[in-house]
């Protein structure tokens, strides 16, 4: 059984679908050549009818739930859909009798591969063999911190890494100094947890623990032994998950820890999110240089904690001990005096001081 998958594995990177829509007729020809019995497309997408017309009776077009992605790349799961069953994987892709081929691979020119960079409007065509360095160049990012290659590679590379790799994912994200790597990993883990099918303990409970631990870390609730737990769990997950989904997740987590253990650890040990992206680590401040002492921030009662100190004709100050980092005050100031700060804090008076009009 051969099935061609046009479902976006990452929702941000619908490469196969994009290629398919560019030329449905040509795609249909290639599908027929590959001898596929079925193709998977998102339910509700208009390409479905057009493709069915082009393919005729030889190949079924199966509409899939677009809230899932990873699972359709697994042949054992995709085959179940032919019988009207749910797509639940029963083994790793490649281990069973049924194959699921990537539509992006099928429609790419020989030696080439289309890649969708995170945030881009459309994919770009690259050589099949790339390096982290060449990917950064292709993405046109200056201050790259890391290169993440999506499913099913699940790798994180240094931006200056020149070793050659075969590109087999539709999705690449180049992280910059602005990106917190703990949060970047949490986002990935949340996605895996959402998709986990629940049939194996390591896949389901493993992704649950990983996502919960990372969420805690990003919410300033990390515990000292957390990364050791992840280091303990991931190798076992890589070997014992029933399908590749949990295994790729474990590889991704290890890959992140290998490169950014320090940055992630800081969240717990120093209570710092260096990139300033994790909301729980942000502090709120009123810039003395911008405050006009209008008292609007106090009068409006926007702060439920009464953490804004001051009265009319005084420079206002946020009491850091009382502030709950809810962010409700950010937009109340007409002068833009209320700001957030990450690792670097602005200088502010410790308590309200009289306002001197300049």
């Amino acid at each position, binding site marked *: 059984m051969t099935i061609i998958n046009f479902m976006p594995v990452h929702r941000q990177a619908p490469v196969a679908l994009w290629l398919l829509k560019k030329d449905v007729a040509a795609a249909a020809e290639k599908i027929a050549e590959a001898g596929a019995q079925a193709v998977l497309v998102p339910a509700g997408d208009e390409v479905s009818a057009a493709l069915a017309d082009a393919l005729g009776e030889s190949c079924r077009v199966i509409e899939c739930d677009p809230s899932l992605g990873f699972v359709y790349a697994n042949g054992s799961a995709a085959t179940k859909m032919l019988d009207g069953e*749910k797509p639940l994987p029963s083994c790793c892709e490649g281990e069973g009798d049924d194959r699921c081929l990537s539509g992006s691979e099928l429609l790419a020119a020989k030696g080439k591969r289309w890649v969708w960079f995170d945030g881009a409007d459309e994919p770009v065509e690259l050589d099949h063999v790339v390096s982290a360095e060449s990917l950064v160049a292709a993405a046109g990012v200056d201050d790259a911190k890391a290169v993440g290659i999506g499913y099913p590679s699940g790798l994180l590379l240094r931006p200056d890494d020149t070793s050659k790799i075969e590109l087999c994912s539709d999705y690449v994200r180049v992280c910059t100094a602005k990106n917190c790597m703990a949060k970047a990993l949490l986002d990935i883990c949340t996605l895996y947890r959402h998709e986990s099918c629940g049939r194996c303990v390591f896949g389901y409970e493993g992704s649950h623990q990983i996502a919960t631990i990372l969420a805690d870390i990003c919410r300033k609730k990390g515990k000292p032994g957390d990364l050791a*737990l992840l280091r303990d769990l991931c190798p076992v997950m890589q070997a014992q998950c029933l399908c590749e989904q949990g295994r790729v997740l474990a590889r991704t987590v290890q890959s992140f820890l290998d490169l950014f253990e320090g940055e992630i650890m800081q969240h717990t040990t120093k209570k710092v999110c260096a990139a300033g992206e994790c909301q729980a680590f942000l502090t709120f401040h009123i810039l003395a240089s911008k405050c006009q002492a209008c008292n609007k921030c106090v009068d409006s009662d926007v702060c439920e904690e009464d953490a804004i100190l001051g009265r009319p004709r005084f420079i206002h100050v946020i009491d850091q001990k009382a502030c709950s980092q809810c962010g409700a005050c950010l937009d109340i100031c007409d002068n833009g005096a209320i700001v957030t700060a990450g690792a670097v804090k602005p200088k502010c008076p410790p308590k309200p001081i009289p306002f001197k009009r300049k």
Partner: protein
Amino acid sequence: MKLTINGAEVEAREGQNVLEAALDAGIYIPHLCKHPDLEAVGGCRLCMVEIEGQDEPVCACKTSVAEGMVVNTTGEQAERVRKLAMELILATHPADCTGCPKYGKCELQSMYQYMGVSPARWRTKSRPVATDESNPLITHMFTRCIRCGRCVRACRELRGAGVLDYQRTEDGIRIGTDGSVSLQEAGCRFCGACIEVCPTGSIVDTLNMFDENKSYADNVVPCRSGCPAHVDIPRYLRHIRNGEYTRAAAVVREKVPFPESLGDICVHSCQDACKRNELNGTPVSVCRLKRAAAVRDTGDWKANVRHEPLSGKRVAVVGAGPAGLTAALYCAEKGHKVVVFEANEKVGGQMRYGIPAYRLPDATVDAEVATILEIAQGDDAEPRIELRCGERIAEPKALLDQGFDAVLVAVGTHDGTVLPMPGHDFEGVLRNTDFLKAARTGDAPDLTGKRVVVLGGGNVAYDCARTAVRLGAASVDVACLEAQDAMTSTPEERAEAAEEGVVLHDAYAFTSINETEDGSGKVGSMTIHKIERFYFDENHRAVTELLDGGEKTIDADCVIFAVGQKPEGTAQMGLELTHGPYIVADAEGKTSVEGIWSAGDCVTGTKSVIAAIAAGRTCASAIDRALGGDGDIDEELTEHDAPEQWVGHAPEGFYDDAVQPEFVDAQMRKDNFDTFECPYTDHEAACEASRCLQCDLRLTISTPRLWNEY
């Protein structure tokens, strides 16, 4: 095939997996998602083993045995994975084991105690899921679910019902029906396989449905345990569904020798216990199905009847009712010669003289008694049971002196009660027992054009009323103390009688029976008084408060007392009595006199034919033991087939009410004593039998052994 597990050489069969081979050899490996009756999946990762020549530990349930394979079940790597898996399972499982209905029987609990694992280093928070009690019979407590998938595999692969599956929800993966519809809407057969295979307390029988004093099997199959004789109901209903009527009748006959009579008149407590009552209110019509089988019985089972060599012992049975004849049969099967003494002209007891012919015709009783005599004799030259009718035994002890080795007194209750109320001795006042017996023997009074009042609210009162209708009464009124919902007669009985013109006066006290105005000494009318309130005071005395102005006088030529009946002549038998004329007997029927047993209504008070039969069986077994036998009277009259496990999706009509047989119209039936309920047709019988939930199917599922059983 040989392999080595933990250094010991172990025999295994081709195609087995390592887990099965180890468990068969008595080597325990923890496992959860693998159930002996279900395909292996390898999800729980608890059955990890190390295999020589392989780097990573593997799960034993998914690894086929191979010749010469060397397995280590306790290697460090395997233990590491196993412990980690258990930690992860426990991390999201509720920790309050003691509050769980599965406490002490839970496989997860047993296993983590064996492994000594704690999830403390992980994020421990259970996933709260509201308990779902909206379905009949089955309660879902998925907060305890560990997603082992056994229920899903049992429902889909073992039963073919396809009701349960993994479901994606906002809060993660759950077990449930597609579209979260009710089990019934999803086509559930309520076979209970999911409950049986669930290792935790996630899918359970509705709480408090089970009686703690009963065994698990008795609770799971309540019809069988609800029947006094424990007839294997689900088994014979399967035969009926397959059109195998003789085999069905054989299953019934394994426990009772009157299948057709019971099919006509059984009180069917099995139906009260039927789990379908919880499903849509109407139980499977077990009684009617029994009749359907019995009327089609060809008797092929007769060759399998127990027929032990003659013991040389003799048993006397006093009273040829259902208890006496049942005991006679089983004593005879055990090799004892039996003489049955019957005071009446014919045998049958209440089946013949207490129950009207339109419910149980003579021919049915005659045929079933003939069969008893036939199978008791078997291939002997002489009959094993001798019936002596018209012989009243006043003193059972004398029978022991006459050379009988044991005596069973089963004289029933043939003495109808007359209330000592004004007018009870006028001409035209009758007793239930006399009246019903007279109707059976053809000596009934001519009631043509007469007005009849029956006093009493039980089924016997209705037997009297409907008999009076058939004897040509111009009007028949039933008056009773109880309000309609407290009457002991069945609602069906009352409805059928009403169709025949019987008028009910419920919640009335009996004031007086009045003479005709001319002082003829004959009944002229009956005065009754409406009861406003009826209760028992602090001294447990019945108190009736009458309604002012609630008196009513009904013209009557005949008043029949149907307010109870008791044993006759027991006072002279020399046996210890209780509550007046009732014989004292222990659980096995032994009376105060050595060598004399007693069973049936004369011990228990008026009960039912099936209860009398059950008591007859118990006594037969006890008598056999007393006479040197082993007391084993069980029989296998037809083979025990392994029931089909694949029941499939609920077919159309599965949730419908019971199939109603055809009835003769009230106007057609009210002037004769012919039976008026037609037996089920083949199609009706098959449909009705298909409604059985097959609760017993669950008991065929293997129970995984816990570690302490290895």
